[in-house]
């Protein structure tokens, strides 16, 4: 059940209805917070079991293991280091087994010249995301940032809160706990904002990303057939597609949580307006880049061990970030290219001329967008040879099919308009870190009309074929 499926809407509407009944009947009961947590845990497990009951079992075992390790760290603080290492290695082992076994076994067999028949291993839904949540939790306990969770239902909910289960946003346990304790269940203000964020997310995913996907698939499946300009257009299209796809998903997750009264952190903040790669990673998949910075980059030593180590740490962090998506040479190259880009930006800051005019900033934005787009070629391609084929076709000025795909024009126009609006309203958005959309007043006729129009356009313009979320595969 993906967040843009009709079945999710039915599931979510049912959850909201039951929560509303629970609130009416039991709000004054002193056990209401516990009942609410149990209800949300059940909802989360139903959500994941709908895809496959083994996914739910896997999530439960991961949660149980991490919870007990947390309790052990609390009870035996002198053994917290080996416990933490155990808590990192075991989930990573299973993550590696599910996700990376075929890659390593295949590469090894190729190296020794043997045939390898890949195993059909089950990849539990959301495993990459909840593994990161679990590891982050244990590292935080080791660092003494907060004490271990003693409520199993609370921990189960942290790991299996359904809006963020499949593809994040990744949240730290203490932030989650704070939000949970301050959660105002089904309050009208949050509901009003949440439903709008959800619909905007649906529009991004179903109208924009899914239509862009058609063209990208065509070009990447047969790059040699296309004119270099078409390939360039497809590379730009993929940059837009992955943004609308993943930020659309994040909006739907944030919106659905917000309707319940829960605030998930912002995951995207107009990344293509970045004027350098460092800024790009502060605006793109914010919760993952924060996680990598906090738990990988700092753990490697960050910038505390000299300049060369800083650069090596940056490169390693980005390569790990790349391989986290999927273990493949393409993702390794993608991560390495971003690492190199970040190093070059640091060198530029140190030795280069960093002051610039507005035109200079615009040039930097275009350059950053161009660099990120070229990196996305490796992210999208199925193999290094396919990526190479796309890049050679792009830069060799070949003739071929010319396809000025109109959905790309439309998406670019929309993104540009929204970016201009963002610049104009920057101060307003800066005050509210959790949202970068205007919220319509749904108690006024004009607000409701615009909202209904948005809903109608989302359904009417949606691509209704079966297109999965890109990040659902990671």
């Amino acid at each position, binding site marked *: 059940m993906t967040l843009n499926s*009709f079945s999710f809407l039915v599931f979510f509407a049912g959850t909201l209805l039951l929560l509303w009944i629970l609130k009416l009947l039991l709000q004054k009961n002193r056990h209401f917070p516990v009942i609410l947590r149990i209800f949300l845990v059940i909802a989360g497990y139903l959500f994941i079991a709908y895809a496959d009951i083994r996914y739910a079992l896997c999530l439960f075992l991961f949660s149980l293991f991490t919870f007990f390790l947390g309790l052990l760290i609390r009870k035996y603080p002198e053994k917290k280091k080996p416990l933490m290492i155990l808590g990192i290695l075991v989930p990573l082992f299973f993550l590696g087994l599910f996700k990376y076994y075929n890659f390593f076994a295949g590469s090894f067999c190729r190296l020794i010249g043997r045939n390898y028949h890949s195993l059909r291993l089950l990849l539990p839904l959301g495993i990459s995301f909840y593994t990161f949540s679990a590891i982050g939790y244990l590292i935080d306990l080791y660092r003494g940032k907060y004490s271990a969770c003693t409520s199993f239902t609370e921990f189960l909910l942290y790991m299996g809160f359904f809006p963020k289960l499949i593809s994040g946003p990744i949240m730290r346990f203490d932030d989650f706990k704070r939000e949970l304790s301050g959660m105002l269940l089904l309050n009208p203000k949050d509901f009003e904002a949440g439903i709008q964020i959800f619909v905007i997310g649906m529009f991004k995913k179903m109208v924009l990303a899914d239509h862009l996907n058609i063209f990208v698939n065509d070009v990447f499946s047969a790059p040699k057939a296309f004119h270099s300009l078409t390939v360039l257009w497809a590379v730009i299209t993929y940059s837009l597609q992955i943004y609308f796809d993943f930020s659309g998903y994040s909006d739907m997750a944030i919106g659905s949580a917000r309707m319940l009264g829960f605030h998930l952190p912002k995951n995207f903040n107009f990344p293509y307006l970045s004027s350098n790669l460092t800024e790009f990673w502060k605006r793109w998949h914010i919760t993952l880049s924060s996680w990598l910075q906090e738990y990988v980059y700092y753990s490697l030593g960050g910038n505390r061990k000299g300049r060369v180590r800083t650069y090596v740490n940056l490169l390693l962090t980005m390569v790990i970030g790349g391989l986290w998506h999927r273990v493949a040479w393409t993702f390794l190259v993608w991560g390495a290219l971003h690492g190199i880009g970040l190093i070059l930006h640091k060198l530029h800051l140190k030795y280069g001329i960093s002051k610039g005019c507005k035109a200079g900033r615009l040039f930097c934005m275009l350059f950053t967008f161009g660099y990120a787009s070229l990196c996305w070629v490796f992210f999208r391609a199925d193999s290094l040879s396919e990526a190479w084929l796309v890049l050679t076709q792009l830069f060799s000025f070949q003739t071929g099919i010319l396809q000025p795909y109109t959905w790309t024009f439309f998406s670019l126009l929309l993104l540009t308009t929204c970016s201009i609006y963002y610049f104009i309203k920057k101060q307003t958005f800066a005050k509210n870190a959790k949202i970068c959309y205007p919220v319509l007043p749904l108690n006024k006729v004009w607000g409701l*009309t615009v909202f209904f129009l948005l809903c109608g356009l989302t359904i009417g313009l949606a691509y209704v074929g079966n297109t999965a979320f890109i990040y659902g595969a990671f």
Partner: protein
Amino acid sequence: MKWLFKAVAAGILSLAILSAFNLIYSFSGIHIANPSGATDYTWQSGQPKSNMTEGFSWLLMDENGFRNKKVPSKSSVNILMMGSSHMEALNVSKEEDCTSLLSEALPEMSVYNIGMSGHTLYRCVDNAEAACEVYSPSDFLILETDAVALSEEEMSLVLSGNAAAIPSYDSGLLFYLQKIPAIKWIYKQCTDWISLSKKVTASPLDSLEDSFPKETANTTTLSSEYQDTLSSFLGKLQEAAGKTGCQTVIFYHPPASAAPSGEILFSTDPVYLKAFADACAMHDILFLDMTEDFASLYQEQHLFAHGFSNTAVGSGHLNRYGHELIARRLFEIIQNVQKESLQ
């Protein structure tokens, strides 16, 4: 309660705005049953149509609900064109479809197109007799198909007279709901979304998109039963056309795509293609296979005969290049037949 009134008012207002948008963006109109039986249904007389979902076009249907620039008198039709949405050609502008181009090239002849969405070869053959009775084409009956690997079951249904016609909703609530463009639009999208399939045939307000059947790849032999059924099927068509004494032509426009090597790829099964061509020859039906023309178009100009700048490359309905090529080849065939008849 006050909020509810506001919501209803906003709902009505947004429905009106969405309907206005829909009229420009994608409006198929209301289809009504065709009592003559020449087609299963037609669009309402003078129906405006818009299409920005696959290509870009805005046009008006003729007084009979078909796509023609002008309506000839029923006794003066020289060439009758039948087919599916490819012939209906709602994706290209009014001057760019095959019928208009053919009319322009043959000013002395009257060409009438009754192509309708959903009317695959099965429906056309089933309706051919009635169509010939209504329009009495004196020279040619031209049919379009994008598939030559036909279903034996479907052909048998046509032969036994049990094939179901495409339903219309001429009365009742569904008929009136069709009149609100946004409702039809959103209803269809919702049914597709729920089933997550690209084609929903059971949808009552469906605009009856055509299926694009994939040819079965590399079949080595065809059963004699299949060949007999195919022969009878095309025989039924020829029998219908024979009553008016016109020449039947079937043109095949194969779907194509770009192969990873960069070459054009047709999914046509050569065994089915040969069987179809042989069956046509047996019944004195002229068979026009557009494969080579489409291949040349791609090799020389990197263009496909199907697809638009807002769809997948090379797939979907015929575009203006496809219509132009087909019109040119049909023109040649008509010229040849006329020359032969003069000799």
